[in-house]
C-alpha cells in the first residue's frame, strides 16, 4: 500500500518546496475508433504520450531564479525530479528511502503563470515539459526507493509591491493595485517523429508574456494615466516589484535590501475595462502586451533586487 503526499520538486541541486499542487501527468492520446459492423470500438490504441509535471509554488524567487523567463533546460547535468512522500501510519512522511519520484533528464522547466492578490502571496504555476532519448524510452523514470530532499523552509514569500509603467519622462505609478498576474506566454512544446510514442525534440517558437494589472483607482485610465489609445512601455520606466516579506512574518524586508523581485517590461499598455459589480469598488484592468526592444527579453526578472 502506498499512500503519498505531494512533497517537492528538484531542478539540478535546487529544491523547490512550498508547493500547493504537484501533478505528474502521462498526458496520453488514446484512440478507440468504431467502424462498420459494431458500435463498439474494435481497437484501442495509445498513439502518443506527452508526459509533463505541473506544479504550483510560493517559492517564487527560487523558481524564477532557475527558469528566468525562457525556462531552464533539463539535461544530464540539471535533471528534474518530482517527489511524492510515502506516508507512515502516523500520516507523516515515512523515514528512509521509500518515497516515490518521477525523474527526467530531457526537457524544459518553465514558468507558466504568476499571480498575486493584494495582501496575498505570489504564486507561480510551472511546468516541466519532458521528452524521450529515442522515442521508445519513457521520458519519466518512476522510482519507489528514493530519499526525500531536504525541504527549504517555505518562509520566503513575496507580495505585490510598487508598480510603475511608462517610458522615460512619462511614468505612471499604479496605486491601489488589487491583482497582478503574468501569463509568461511560452509556446514551448515537445514534438515527436516517425509515429514514436514519445516525443524526442522540443521547440520554442514563441515567448510572449502578457501582464494584467487590476486596480481600483480610476485615475490610471484617462488623461493622467493610460490614455484610451494605449501607451508605450520601456524597461527603463516599467518596473513591477514583488515585495519580500520578512522571514519572521513581521512586515517586509527593507526596500534597500536586494532581496525583492524586480520585473521590467517593454511593450504597450492598454486599459481593457473599467468594471463595477454591485456595490463593490469598480476595477480598472490594464493589459500589458510585452515585446522585444531589440536588446532585452520582453520581460526581465531579477530575484535579488532592491526596491528603488
Amino acid at each position, binding site marked *: 500500500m502506498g499512500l503519498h503526499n505531494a512533497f517537492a520538486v528538484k531542478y539540478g541541486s535546487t529544491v523547490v518546496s512550498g508547493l500547493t499542487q504537484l501533478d505528474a501527468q502521462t498526458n496520453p492520446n488514446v484512440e478507440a475508433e468504431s467502424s462498420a459492423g459494431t458500435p463498439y470500438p474494435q481497437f484501442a490504441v495509445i498513439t502518443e504520450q506527452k508526459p509533463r509535471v505541473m506544479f504550483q509554488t510560493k517559492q517564487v524567487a527560487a523558481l524564477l531564479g532557475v527558469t528566468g523567463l*525562457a525556462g531552464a533546460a533539463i539535461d544530464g547535468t540539471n535533471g528534474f525530479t518530482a517527489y511524492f512522500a510515502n506516508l507512515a501510519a502516523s500520516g507523516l512522511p515515512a523515514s528512509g528511502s521509500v518515497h516515490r519520484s518521477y525523474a527526467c533528464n530531457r526537457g524544459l522547466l518553465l514558468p507558466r503563470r504568476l499571480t498575486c492578490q493584494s495582501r496575498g502571496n505570489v504564486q507561480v504555476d510551472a511546468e516541466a515539459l519532458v521528452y524521450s532519448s529515442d522515442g521508445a524510452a519513457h521520458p519519466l523514470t518512476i522510482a519507489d526507493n528514493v530519499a526525500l530532499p531536504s525541504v527549504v523552509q517555505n518562509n520566503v514569500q513575496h507580495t505585490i509591491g510598487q508598480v510603475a509603467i511608462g517610458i522615460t519622462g512619462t511614468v505612471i505609478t499604479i496605486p491601489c493595485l488589487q491583482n497582478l498576474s503574468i501569463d509568461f506566454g511560452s509556446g514551448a512544446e515537445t514534438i515527436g517523429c516517425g509515429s514514436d510514442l514519445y516525443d524526442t525534440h522540443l521547440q520554442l517558437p514563441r515567448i510572449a508574456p502578457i501582464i494584467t494589472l487590476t486596480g481600483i483607482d480610476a485615475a490610471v485610465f484617462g488623461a493622467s494615466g493610460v490614455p484610451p489609445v494605449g501607451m508605450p512601455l520601456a524597461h527603463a520606466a516599467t518596473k513591477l516589484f514583488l515585495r519580500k516579506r520578512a522571514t519572521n512574518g513581521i512586515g517586509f524586508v527593507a526596500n534597500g535590501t536586494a532581496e525583492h523581485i524586480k520585473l521590467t517590461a517593454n511593450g504597450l499598455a492598454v486599459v481593457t475595462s473599467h468594471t463595477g459589480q454591485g456595490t463593490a469598488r469598480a476595477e480598472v484592468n490594464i493589459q500589458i502586451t510585452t515585446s522585444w526592444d531589440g536588446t532585452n*527579453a520582453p520581460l526581465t526578472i531579477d530575484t535579488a533586487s532592491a526596491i528603488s
Partner: protein
Amino acid sequence: MAKSKEKTTDASEQSPASGEDTALAMRAVMDITGCGQPAAKDRVKAMEPSLVAKIAKLERDDKRVEIVTLLY
C-alpha cells in the same frame, strides 16, 4: 575616440574576471536572453575572462546593445 575605445578593450582583456564582473555579465546575459541563473552562470563560465570583463564594462556603461553583438 576609436583609439581610446581600443585601448579600453585591451585593458579589459588583460584583467581576469572578478566576482563583480561575473555577476554583471550574468545579469546582462539573463536580461538579454531571458534565461535563468544556472544557464547564465554556465554561459559566463564558458567565456574567456577577457570577454567577461568586456561585457561587465559595457554593462557598467549601460551599453547593452553592444553586449548583444558579443553574445550572438
